[in-house]
């Protein structure tokens, strides 16, 4: 691919020359009502899930907070506020497409169709979990939908390249989406991966979730550029930044990037300015956080709900039904997890080798 033009960074995402199939006016037309409802439904399911996990996580850690105690032990990184990324990207993916996520993976797993019951059992450390309790919430693997995640910043990107390589080598049009945070854009693995993906024209979409914070360090204090999308240009691929955590803009940009990858035209990068609604991990006091006051008003879900109500796409009754369906689905997943046995200590050494 030739070096991209400035138009590659237009707000609509990608230049016409990069995407001969895309229609100029498409970006201005509202999405179909059914698509918008799906985006909303996915975001609600994710939020319902994260709220429930948060509740279960803290339920038996009192009095005092002991990170290793309770039915969900260990670190817990929840993705509330980042729903627009998962909800906007994943509708363009098939179960045969790969998705690699980060230490904060639940929203992406849910939106990509990971088995919710087994994922929940894994988070609860149960034998019925995706990894029979060996992985935990940062290490979820569901080969049925080619989903994986890594707890190491930026290190989920290189394996996504390999999945994309395998898809192409096999003659399929499957793609791999590699999601990472804005902090990861300062890692060597990020830059190596962008270069190699572009060099070999691999069917990859890089998605950067910019939630402003690398634990306690804000983007301005860690990153020389105000926006990571120009870093795509440094590696000869289109890059776009979505402002305002806008789920529909994510949806449109992801459609183009996924189509481009599927068509064999190479990788793209999408950065989404999203929101970390809660702490880096549960128990994070967030005393460092200078933007706490405005967090609630930036919550993307009430905002999208208002938008859809005003547009007449959603009404109060269907909103309630969506919420109730989500709660029921999450209930079923948690019930499955709690009914699953703890792994037998006698099997602690299992699964090291195939």
């Amino acid at each position: 691919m030739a070096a991209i033009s400035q138009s590659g960074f237009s707000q609509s995402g990608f230049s016409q020359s990069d995407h001969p199939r895309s229609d100029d006016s498409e970006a201005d037309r509202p999405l179909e009502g059914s698509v918008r409802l799906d985006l909303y439904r996915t975001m609600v399911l994710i939020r319902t899930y994260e709220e429930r996990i948060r509740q279960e996580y803290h339920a038996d850690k009192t009095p005092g907070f002991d990170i290793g105690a309770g039915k969900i032990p260990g670190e817990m990184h929840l993705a509330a506020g980042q729903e627009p990324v998962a909800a906007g990207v994943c509708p363009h993916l098939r179960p045969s497409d790969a998705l690699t996520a980060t230490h904060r993976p639940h929203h992406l797993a849910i939106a990509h169709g990971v088995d919710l019951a087994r994922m929940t059992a894994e988070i609860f450390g149960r034998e019925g979990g995706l990894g029979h309790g060996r992985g935990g919430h940062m290490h979820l693997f569901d080969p049925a939908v080619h989903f994986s995640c890594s707890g190491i910043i930026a290190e989920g990107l290189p394996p996504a390249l390999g999945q994309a390589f395998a898809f192409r080598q096999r003659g399929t049009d499957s793609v791999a989406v590699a999601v990472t945070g804005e902090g990861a854009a300062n890692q060597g693995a990020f830059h190596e991966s962008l270069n190699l993906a572009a060099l070999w024209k691999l069917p990859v979409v890089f998605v950067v979730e910019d939630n402003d914070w690398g634990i306690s360090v804000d983007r301005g204090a860690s990153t020389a550029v105000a926006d990571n999308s120009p870093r795509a240009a440094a590696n000869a691929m289109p890059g776009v930044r979505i402002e305002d955590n806008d789920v529909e803009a994510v949806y449109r940009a992801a459609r183009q990037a996924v189509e481009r990858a599927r068509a064999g035209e190479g990788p793209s990068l999408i950065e989404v300015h999203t929101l970390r609604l809660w702490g880096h991990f549960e128990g994070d006091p967030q005393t460092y956080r200078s933007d706490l006051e405005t967090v609630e008003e930036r919550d993307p879900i009430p905002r999208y709900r208002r938008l859809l109500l005003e547009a007449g796409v959603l009404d109060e009754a269907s909103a309630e039904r969506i919420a109730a369906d989500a709660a029921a689905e999450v209930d079923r997943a948690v019930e499955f997890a709690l009914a699953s046995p703890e792994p037998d200590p006698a099997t602690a050494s299992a699964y090291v080798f195939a």
Partner: protein
Amino acid sequence: MTVVEEPASKAAPPPPRRLTMAKAMVEGIAAEMERDPSVFYLGEDVGAYGGIFSSTTGLLERFGPERVLDTPISETAFMGLATGAAVEGMRPIVELMFADFFGVCMDQIYNHMAKIHFESGGNVKVPVVLTSAVGGGYSDGAQHSQCLWGTFAHLPGMKVVIPSTPADAKGLMISAIRDDNPVIYLFHKGAMGLAWMTKTRRALGEVPPEPYETPIGKAAVVRSGRDVTVVTVSLSVHYALDVADELATDGIDVEVLDLRSLVPLDRDAIVESVGRTGRLVVVDEDYQSFGMSAEVMATVAERDPSLFAVPPVRVAVPDVPIPYARALEQTVLPTPERIRSAVRQVMG
């Protein structure tokens, strides 16, 4: 399946084929690439150059750039690419030019390649072969001379194989490629039979032309002896055999056990041999502390310390980076001289 062209059969069978370890290794790779289209090779300078240490000579010409890929100098990216491709059912062979370079990509190796099977509760397999050159002896300094097999062996989830002979180089390569686990395959530069490096007379060896597997996790008694067991791997096997030949003239009968793999470790073979000789010398070109030499001794001590007729002795790199100056490097490496004196020490 034929991997080399044999002349039409005549009255007398051809003499045994002798290959260098490098050629035997390539023959094993080529055989599997012929058999299995999911096998491919990637790394730095593995294409037109044929591998800096001749690990891929001729593969590009034979299999093309789709399956023999020169990578950018981005070890993290291409190591992870190998893992991701393996997760999707391919069988990548990924070369890390020097084992010493593991520092720039170790996260992909030990946190991803090695752990995904475990973390997934056995639901995801990662059949990668990671090939890498190890060893010193030619004044390449502290960053290009290490063996480091103890480091890989210490971290769970990777098999670690270390051929010392051409025949094992081929058979272990085929076994490694067919294995469903990550296998670290470490070849010693000094044992490859390279024209541009001092080599032992044992660098050439007979190699059967047909594909075959050498089982991973089985040590080989490469020389039987009654008096003392030398347990070792890689180039040191050749030195141990040289020393054994010399000492035989003094009436010392040395058994040499080539471990061939550290993970799995053939503990039974170690204990069985020491059980017969009562004397153990461990020769390890890796660093001495917290490594292979201690593991071998612990294996005997845990099973039956009474097997030791005398305290065991180890010949390893004292815990110092490999020095550049020739005299210094030869002092810290497990040279035949050091092995000889260790054997004499345990013989009293």
